[in-house]
């Protein structure tokens, strides 16, 4: 059609710097190769090939991120932002993705092989479900799904416009909804988790989209820097559209980070999902969502800092209090870790409220430190088992320290790190965000932070009491002997948690040097 051809002459082809978007390209390629492997590679080789492709893809993307380290650009016509914070967070996400693949690859724990179901479509309670339990097969689609999700996360933290951010949000969320429903054991719980996550996630996406639309209506652009300029340049006209958009967008993002009062999905989803997937959600998604939150609030709403800070104060306080207090009543390890993650979100939000360079680097450091500790903790959770699968009820952890001191000792170390005891990464992170908050004038928030930390210490210490100071139950859990994969994850998490507690300077420098966000 000639009209279209003429029109094409007017629209300039976008200039794409493939070097600057190479991490995304590598991830996308790895995910597509994974899909092809699923279609063409014989089933007996499929799992190994999928693991290899996923690990290679994630490592390759990490290499690409590392190669870009000093880049400060807005490639693809300003759609993406390749800058220090974006790259630091992308690298963090890729590391967590890599470690999560290792956890997913473990097959030695369950007598029937792996944490993933054979066929997710079979209804629980039917004949097929019984037959499935005996099979050693595994749904290998999980690997490309996870890589897709990582791709979405990297887009999410590198988005320079709200539309691209929304695409990232969907690309990261959709595979996670599926992954949440893939647990081999306790199928009903897993499917409930998937549905709940999907419904609430879709709801929050709608909030995000509505906020996006309002902000576009206000600023006439979806570009983050453009929104900031529009707000700063707006004199005399009403700002209500802007604040409505800010509020709705915040709801969408705060849902993803799991901040109160939008946190209620976390415990259910964490509990029902296969534990390696939970670990991935608790770390990767958290980093991605915080990355987007930080970028939106620092760049797009940076000029409106004095307007949103009271709101974020309230959210941070509520999140810290709700997370720490509700965690006390939990009897399930995964639910307890879920509420603990809510409390940690509150601590990281104090870095956001600081709204300064120190706050950004502290939040990013915290995410990295918290992520490794959490991965280690969930890795330990996969190892403590009863005949029905993982022994997640806390009463089953009685006297674990007597039975396998090394494992229980590692878990105790992770818990102390989560509680923020010095000489662990948790303390360094907490110190970093709190000092940034005090520097940013949020001293009151820090006081709430330290008090809730003391509350939180109670439930971490309670698990230590259970493991070490009580007699083991007669029919206590068995501790599975892990293969190389899970052992490597626990070892790595221990090393990082200790190293970031004792010698954190290198990573602190990296986070500090990541400033500033790119505008444009």
């Amino acid at each position, binding site marked *: 059609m000639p009209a279209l051809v003429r029109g094409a002459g007017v629209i300039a082809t976008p200039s794409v710097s493939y070097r600057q978007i190479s991490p995304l390209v590598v991830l996308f390629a790895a995910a597509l190769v994974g899909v092809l492997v699923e279609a063409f590679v014989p089933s007996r080789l499929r799992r190994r090939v999928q693991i290899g492709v996923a690990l290679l893809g994630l490592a390759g993307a990490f290499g690409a991120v590392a190669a870009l380290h000093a880049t400060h650009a807005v490639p693809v016509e300003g759609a993406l932002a390749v800058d220090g914070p974006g790259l630091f967070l992308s690298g963090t996400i890729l590391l967590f993705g890599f470690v999560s693949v290792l956890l997913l690859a473990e097959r030695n724990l369950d007598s029937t092989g792996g944490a993933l179901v054979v066929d997710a479509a079979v209804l629980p309670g039917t004949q097929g479900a019984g037959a499935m339990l005996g099979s050693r097969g595994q749904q290998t689609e999980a690997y490309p799904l996870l890589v897709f999700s990582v791709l979405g996360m990297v887009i999410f933290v590198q988005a320079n416009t709200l539309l691209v951010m929304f695409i990232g949000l969907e690309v990261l969320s959709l595979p996670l909804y599926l992954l949440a429903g893939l647990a081999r054991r306790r199928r009903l719980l897993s499917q409930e988790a998937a549905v709940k996550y999907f419904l609430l996630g879709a709801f929050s996406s709608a909030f995000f989209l509505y906020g996006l639309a309002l902000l576009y209506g206000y600023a006439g652009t979806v570009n983050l820097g453009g929104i900031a300029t529009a707000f700063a340049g707006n004199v005399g006209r009403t700002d209500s559209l802007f604040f409505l958009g800010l509020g709705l967008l915040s709801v969408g993002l705060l849902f993803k980070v799991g901040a109160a009062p939008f946190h209620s999905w976390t415990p259910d989803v964490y509990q029902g999902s296969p534990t390696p997937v939970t670990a991935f959600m608790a770390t990767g998604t958290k980093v991605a969502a915080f990355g987007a939150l930080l970028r939106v609030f620092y760049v797009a709403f940076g000029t409106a800092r004095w307007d949103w800070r009271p709101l974020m104060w309230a959210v941070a306080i509520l999140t810290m209090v709700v997370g720490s207090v509700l965690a006390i009543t939990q009897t399930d390890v995964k639910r307890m870790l879920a509420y603990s993650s809510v409390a940690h979100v509150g601590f990281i939000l104090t870095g956001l409220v600081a709204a300064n360079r120190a706050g950004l680097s502290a939040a990013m450091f915290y995410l990295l430190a918290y992520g490794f500790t959490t991965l280690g903790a969930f890795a330990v959770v996969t190892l403590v088992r009863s005949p029905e699968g993982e022994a997640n009820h806390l009463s089953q952890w009685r006297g674990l320290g007597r039975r396998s001191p090394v494992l229980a000792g590692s878990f105790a170390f992770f818990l102390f790190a989560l509680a923020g005891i010095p000489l662990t990464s948790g303390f360094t992170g907490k110190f970093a965000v709190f000092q940034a908050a*005090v520097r940013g004038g949020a001293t009151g928030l820090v006081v709430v932070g330290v008090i809730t930390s003391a509350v939180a210490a109670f439930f971490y210490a309670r698990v230590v009491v259970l493991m070490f*100071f009580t007699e083991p139950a007669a029919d206590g859990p068995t501790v599975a002997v892990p293969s190389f994969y899970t052992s490597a994850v626990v070892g790595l998490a221990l090393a990082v948690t200790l190293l970031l507690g004792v010698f954190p300077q290198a990573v602190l420098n990296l986070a500090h040097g990541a400033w500033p966000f790119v505008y444009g």
Partner: protein
Amino acid sequence: MSATGTTPWVTILAAVPLAGAVLVGLTPRSRSDVAKVTALVASVATLVLAIVMAAQFKSQAPGYQFVQSYSWIPAFGVRYAVGVDGISLALIALVAVLTPVVVLASWQDAELGTRPPRLFFALLLVTETLLVGVFGATDVFLFYVCFEAMLIPMYLLIGSYGGARRSYAAMKFLLYSLFGGLLMLAAVIGLYVVSLHQGHGTFELASLERLRISSGVQDWLFLGFFVAFAIKAPLFPFHTWLPDAGAESPTGGAVMLVGVLDKVGTFGFLRYCIPLFPEASRTFAPYVITLAVIGILYGALVAMAQRDLKRLVSYTSVAHFGFIALGCFAFTSEAGSGAVLYMVNHGLSTGALFLVVGFLASRRSSRDIAAFGGVAKVTPVLAGLFLFVGMSSLALPGLNTFVSEFLVLVGTFTRYRVAAIAAALGIVLAALYILIAYQRTMQGPVVHQATLGLRDLTTREAWVMAPLVFLIVALGVYPKPLLDRITPAVQATYALAHRYDPTPPLAAVHPAALGTRGSGAGGGGRP
């Protein structure tokens, strides 16, 4: 900073027990005897090194000695900075003396826990390392790290090797201390941010002491530090964790906990609260002194009502910590030196008292006072030791505690007369609680047939007690070497807070003294 003494003693004294802990941890599970010997060697080696350090310490040199300072986390201005003054010297020496004693005393107790004995000794040595770090740190961040990290080995010691209600006691101990510690963290961060606003962010004590902090901010920061130390010390009304932790700890753990760990609180008053926040210290001093006096009387009264020997000793400590806090906040060099000396003496006397009570309790498998009675007839040596150590605890002249208690009271009297008089009542009460306990357990006819078979002091136990008994007498008769080292450090501390000894009233009347009065007493000289 003094040019004397370049040997990095603090690092050495911290490293030796840590290396010992690692070695103990590596010993085979079945050979607990190897673990014990290794622990003993490591702790005795630390003691020997501490003695060498004390010998090299120049008592009259100002400031910190054996200083080291390296950049640790430049992003926050954190340094690995350590050094020793008279106060830290005394307390590090106390740690070094008590650790081998505890190792030897726990020879059999460690077998009774729910966890392997080697872990007990490893945790003990790690605690020693962190205590040396706490007393030797001259960087607030480093101090905080050791202060908080110290909780974990102690928590595990109480929880794994303690009595029947050990997990409750361990939890209570951890939560109380952590709560105080986290409040202190907020204050530490506040202090750091103040230093950032006045140049560059630092945690070094020497730089922080030069900061000008507005009085409102000072009050809050002071409270942050103070509550943490008051919980740790523990000062009334923050003391309720101590009787539980003290009673449920294994004997060795209780000696470590009450003997040394709690000194960190009162040490913190002198090292951090007073020099860093001088104005706030003066503002709050009357309140602290009130709490201290209440603690002295309350601790003593409650101690008299105890039925459990270990709880009794714990409550006597609450009373003694009242004296120490009184001494710290009276702002006279007599009271301050007395307080530091009291910290050492209390560590020795109460440590010894816990050990004797522990010997009794392990023989009888009960800590109940009612389970004893007339035991002196069966175990005369043990009973004699009990009496001797009790006398030291109630400050009998000639024994160590008397000197320090006297100094505290004299020093307080010149500034806070009412408080000193009320506190003096505590001495009477102390005589009561010790003697009543002694009478009920040791004197009179044998009450229980089961006590007839009790063994008297064994050779190992005698070796455990010997160094303590020696020091109790030695410091009672001749405390000068220790006081000579403590007093300059205490005076330097109060000088930082601009508090000088009040001019004696006689000198004020004397015409010859009139001329020097204004310059000598300084601004804060009036009592």
